[in-house]
C-alpha cells in the first residue's frame, strides 16, 4: 500500500466503493439484518473504549468548565465565571502568546528544512533511501531521551558552548539556554524541532515523488532554473501535503505540551508557559479542575474552529 497521503480528505470518495448501495435501500431480509447486527458487534469494542476514555470525559469537560470544582467532591455550577477568568487573566494571554510564537517557529523552521531537504533528496538517486532513514531516526526517539540529550549538549558548563570556546569560538560559552528567560522558549522549540523536521521532510519527499516528471522536463526545456522548478513545479505539486502540514502545525502548536513540560515545566518565571502547561498546573497543582476544563475546552474549540474554517474555505473552492 502506498503511504496514504494525509490530505484531510473527507472520506466519502473511498467509502463509496466499499458499499453496496443496491442492498441498502432494498427490503431487509433477516440475513441482512443479521449482517447489520454483526457489523455493529464488530464495532462495539472501538465504540466502548472511545466513549469511556474520550467522548464521555469530553462531554464532562463541557459541564465542568461551567463549575467550580477541585477534582474531588461535588462541582458547584458557576456559569461563565471560568471563561471570564480566562479572558481577563494575564497569565492566560502570556501563555497564549508563547503558543503563537511556537506556531511562528514551527511554520517556518521545520517546514523550510523539510522542503529544502526533500527537494534536494528528490533530485538525487544515490543514497536517497539512506538519507531518508537517517533523517527519520530522531522522530522515533522518545521525547524524554531527546530532551535529556539536548539538556546535556546545551549545558552551559560542559556542553557545546564550552567545547566551542576551547577551540576559539567563545560565543556560546556559559549560555544557559533553558535558564535564560529570553532563550528558553526558542531553545525548547529547537529540541522539539530536532526530532520533528525529518518527519516533515519525509512527508514532503513522498509528495514530491508523485509529482509528474514530465512537468520538470517541460520546465527544463523552457530553461527554468532549479529555483524556478522548485517554485513553479514542486511547490504547486505538493500543495495538498504542504497545506496539511501547515494546518497540523498550527493545531499541534496550540496544544503543545511534552517538550515544555519535560525541559522547563513552563519556567523560568513563566517564560515557556503555554496554555497546555498552564491547564495542567491548574488541574493538578492548584486543584482548579473546573477552570482547567475551561482552558482545555477553549483551546480545543479554537483548534476545531481552525479546521472547520479550512474545510469551509476548501469547499468554497479555495485552492488550498
Amino acid at each position, binding site marked *: 500500500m502506498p503511504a496514504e497521503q494525509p490530505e484531510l480528505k473527507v472520506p466519502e470518495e473511498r467509502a463509496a466503493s466499499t458499499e453496496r448501495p443496491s442492498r441498502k435501500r432494498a427490503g431487509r431480509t433477516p440475513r441482512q439484518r443479521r449482517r447489520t447486527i*454483526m457489523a*455493529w458487534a464488530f464495532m462495539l469494542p472501538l465504540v466502548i473504549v*472511545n466513549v469511556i476514555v474520550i467522548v464521555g470525559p469530553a462531554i464532562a469537560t463541557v459541564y465542568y468548565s461551567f463549575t467550580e470544582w477541585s477534582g474531588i467532591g461535588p462541582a458547584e455550577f458557576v456559569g461563565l465565571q471560568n471563561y471570564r477568568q480566562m479572558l481577563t487573566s494575564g497569565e492566560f494571554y502570556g501563555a497564549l502568546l508563547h503558543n503563537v510564537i511556537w506556531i511562528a517557529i514551527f511554520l517556518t523552521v521545520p517546514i523550510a528544512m523539510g522542503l529544502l531537504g526533500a527537494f534536494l533528496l528528490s533530485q538525487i538517486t544515490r543514497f536517497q533511501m539512506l538519507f531518508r532513514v537517517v533523517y527519520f531516526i530522531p522522530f522515533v526517539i522518545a521525547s524524554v*531521551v531527546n530532551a535529556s540529550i539536548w539538556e546535556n549538549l546545551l549545558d552551559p558548563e560542559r556542553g557545546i558552548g564550552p567545547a566551542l570556546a576551547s577551540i576559539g569560538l567563545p560565543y556560546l560559552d556559559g549560555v544557559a539556554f533553558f535558564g535564560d528567560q529570553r532563550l528558553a522558549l526558542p531553545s525548547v522549540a529547537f529540541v522539539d524541532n530536532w526530532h520533528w523536521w525529518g*518527519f516533515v521532510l519525509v512527508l514532503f519527499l513522498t509528495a514530491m515523488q508523485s509529482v509528474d516528471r514530465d512537468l520538470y522536463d517541460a520546465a527544463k526545456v523552457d530553461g527554468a532554473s532549479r529555483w524556478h522548478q522548485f517554485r513553479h513545479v514542486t511547490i504547486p505539486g505538493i500543495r495538498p501535503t504542504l497545506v496539511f502540514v501547515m494546518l497540523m502545525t498550527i*493545531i499541534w502548536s496550540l496544544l503543545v*505540551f511534552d517538550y515544555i513540560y519535560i525541559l522547563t515545566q513552563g519556567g523560568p518565571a513563566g517564560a515557556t508557559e503555554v496554555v497546555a502547561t498552564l491547564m495542567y498546573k491548574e488541574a*493538578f497543582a492548584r486543584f482548579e479542575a473546573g477552570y482547567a476544563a475551561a482552558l482545555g475546552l477553549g483551546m480545543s474549540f479554537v483548534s476545531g474552529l481552525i479546521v472547520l474554517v479550512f474545510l469551509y474555505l476548501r469547499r468554497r473552492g479555495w485552492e488550498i
Partner: protein
Amino acid sequence: MGGRRTSREPSKVSYYAVLVALSFFALTPLVVLGFNALKTSAELGRNPLGPPLSPDFSNFPKAWELGNFTVTMRNSAIITAGTVIGVCIIAGMAAYALSRLDLPGGNGVLFSLFVGSAVPFQLFLVPLFFLWSRLQLTNTLIGIIIIYWAIYSPFATLLLRSYLVALPRDFEDAARIDGANEFQVLTRVVLPLAWPGFLTVALVSGLAAWNEFFFAVTFIQDDNLKPIATSFLSFQSQFSRDWGLTSAAGLFMILPVIVLFLILQRRFIEGLASGGLKG
C-alpha cells in the same frame, strides 16, 4: 570530464554537501550519546563530546541498577504488548466491519474516526483523570493500556480499513460459499492476507506506547509501575550531573526502538506518515 552525463553531475555535489550536513545534525547528538555512555566521570570532564579514549562499560550495569530498569522495562513491555494486541483486535474488528460487513452509516463512522484520531487530550484529560481515580485505574497498567487503546485505535482502524478495502473479496466469498461463518472468514481468510497492515499498526501503536510520556506521567505515580519513559525522566533529574550514567540509561530506552526501526524502516515510515500521530 567530458560527456553529457558528467558535465551535468557536478551541480549535484552541493546537493550532497547539504544533505550530509543535515545528516550530521540528525545523527551527531545520538553519536555523542553513544560516546558518553562509554565514558567515566573523569573522562567526561576532560573530553565531553569526543569519542571515548578508553571505553568503559560500567555505566550500563550501574544505570540498570539505579534506574530500576528490570522493573520499568517489564512495565513498558507489558504496556506496549497490551496496547499492540488490544489495538490490533479493536481496530481489526472495526476495520473489518467498515470494509466488509456493510455497516450502515459507514461514512458517518469514518468521519467520526477522523475526528477521534485528532481529539486533543485537553478536551478529555481532566474528567478522565478523576474518573480513573474513582475507578481505581490510576496507578495500574491496565488503566494506562485502556487509554492507549482508545487514543490509538481510531487511527489504526483507518489504516487497516485502507488495507482491507484494497484486498479482493473473492477469497472470502469462496469461503462463505463453502459454509464458513463470519468469524472463520475473518481469522482464516482475511487475517492471513492483511498481515502487513496489522504489522504496520502494531509497529506504530507499539512505538507510540513505548515512547508515550504525557498520559504515563499523569496516570502512574507508583515507582513500581512506571514505564521507562517516566522513570527515565526522574532518573535524569536525579543524576543530571552524571552524563555518562544518563546516556547509558537513555540508550536502554532507545536502542530497541532504533534496531527495530532499522530492520523495518519502510513499514515504520509508511505507517507513521499515514497517521496523524504527533510524536
